[in-house]
């Protein structure tokens, strides 16, 4: 009797519902499933839609410029006087300026970033790595206007007094700051891809008698090259799209440095031109459209870089899966 009672208490509550669903329940389930799917689809699709609309808007605003003024002057002339009585829209030195600071920033940041990534993933203990990596990623959290102030108030006078440059806001200044800003991106992605290389490769290398140095530089890095290239491209996108810092640090002189390797001269970038000129252009004027034309070029460049990085990231993923 006692035993029976206890057994009854532990028995699960009886559920009288039949296993078959009623028509209403069936419909409810159907509705919830599809409503849920639809709302998730709508949310993700709206993101895609935003990107498409931005593309559409920039191209729609910028295309009339190419129709009215052609593309020859835009890409070959260095004369950028959009508000003159007889306006001139030669964006060559602006496009070149963007490439200048971006490439110089990469030259400064890539070796440092890859060595840091190697150090973090191969050499240092896990404990220290977990301490250092967040600090590096903190660099990405500093607002770009703060970097800009640093460039104008600290780095520019420093370059002038220490290196005797006549002007401190120049391509070099902007490149140094952009390099610092690109570091966290490159380090993070490169470190991930180096870590993703499996133990088997390393052990095989050591087994063949390679030193640690040889293993890292002739086995691990070549094996991780797709991820590292993707990291560099992502860093490049960060640098080419940056606006506030270059607007403050590059000097914005509308020229191609001569001689061409002289980074201590001021340059002007595409992003800075758009940001600086947009203020007073009246909507629909040639100047306004020309800024959107620059926007199209910039968009095309970042889009291309994005595809490249996607390609390398995808092949990096494939490589690590193969192992």
């Amino acid at each position, binding site marked *: 009797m006692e035993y029976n009672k206890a057994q009854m208490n532990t028995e699960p509550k009886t559920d009288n519902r039949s296993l078959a669903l009623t028509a209403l329940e069936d419909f409810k389930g159907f509705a919830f499933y599809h409503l849920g799917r639809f709302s998730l689809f709508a949310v993700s699709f709206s993101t895609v839609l935003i990107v498409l609309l931005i593309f559409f808007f920039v191209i729609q605003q910028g295309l009339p410029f190419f129709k009215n003024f052609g593309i020859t002057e835009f890409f070959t002339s260095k004369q950028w006087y959009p508000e003159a009585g007889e306006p001139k829209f030669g964006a060559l030195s602006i496009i070149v300026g963007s490439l200048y600071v971006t490439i110089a920033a990469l030259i400064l940041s890539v070796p440092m970033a890859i060595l840091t990534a190697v150090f973090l993933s191969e050499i240092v203990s896990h404990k220290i790595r977990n301490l250092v990596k967040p600090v590096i990623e903190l660099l990405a959290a500093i607002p770009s206007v703060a970097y800009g102030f640093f460039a104008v108030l600290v780095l*520019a006078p420093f370059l002038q007094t220490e290196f005797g440059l*006549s002007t401190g806001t120049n391509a070099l200044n902007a490149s140094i700051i952009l390099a610092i800003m690109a570091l966290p991106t490159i380090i993070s992605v490169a470190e991930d891809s180096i870590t993703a290389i499996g133990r088997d490769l390393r052990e095989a290398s050591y087994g063949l008698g390679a030193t640690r140095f040889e293993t890292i530089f002739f086995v691990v890095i070549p094996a991780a090259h797709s991820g590292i290239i993707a990291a560099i491209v992502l860093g490049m996108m960060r640098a080419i799209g940056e606006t506030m810092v270059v607007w*403050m640090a590059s000097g914005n002189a*509308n020229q191609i440095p001569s001689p061409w390797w002289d980074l201590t001269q001021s340059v002007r970038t595409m992003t800075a031109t758009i940001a*600086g000129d947009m203020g007073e252009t*009246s909507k629909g004027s040639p100047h306004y459209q020309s800024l959107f034309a620059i926007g199209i070029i910039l968009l095309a460049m970042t889009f291309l870089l994005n595809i490249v990085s996607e390609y390398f990231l995808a092949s990096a993923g494939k490589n690590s899966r193969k192992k």
Partner: protein
Amino acid sequence: MKKNLFTMVLVLTAVWVCNLSAAEKTLQIEGSTTVGPIADAFTEAFSQAYPDVKITVTKNGSGNGAAALVDSRCDIAMMSRFMKLDEFTASVDKGIMPVAHAIAMDGICIIVHPSNPVTELSLAQLHDIFTGAVKNWKELGGPDMPIVAISRDTSSGTYETFDHFVMRKDKMDASIEYVSSNPQVHSRVKTTAGAIGYVGVGFLDAEVKGLKVNGIMPSKQTVAGGTYPLSRPLFLFTNGYPALGTISHKFCTFYLTEKGQEIIEAKGFVPVTKY
């Protein structure tokens, strides 16, 4: 919760209705980015004195201000120059009589690094510096040091004035650096030995050296008196003289009051009146 929502809707509707009734007392101001800060500060002062008046200030350039007045899209047009003849005739053709109110004087001061021995430049010399014809201070009686010429961005009113008085129709050289605000010009000139730049008179201080232009030192007196060559009046334009006692009239004559004058001085301009 539902009740809360209902009350909220009710309150919002009430606020909206109140806005509608107040909408009769609005003042649309449009035009120059140079005059903009003054209009903004006037608006702030007015929002305390006349809380039921809604003033909107749009800063989109003198030309747009004139166009808006011609199309009756604004009550007051801010302009850092006088109306051009075609703007004036277009306006009269539409039955609108533009009346100018000069509310302040704007002077542009040429500044160099304090260590620079040069004390004076002529308009022609300034022109040569910014067209790139002169590239070294040696040519202007200074030390052998390359000139770093710094300009405001082309969308600023200060640039517009400088362009008008100094550049005339000529283009600035490609080596000219551009920065986006008066304080930035100031800080670049302060830290760069070979620099030359221009700022509104309000930004001249002991950390940089103001130059005489055509032999005249920029000061409140020389700017207001018109003897300093880089000075110009700033205007508000209305359709006819505003009816006395209206908010538009009060706004256009606010520069005559002590408070208005203080605001103009605080924004770095020179008042036309003296108390």
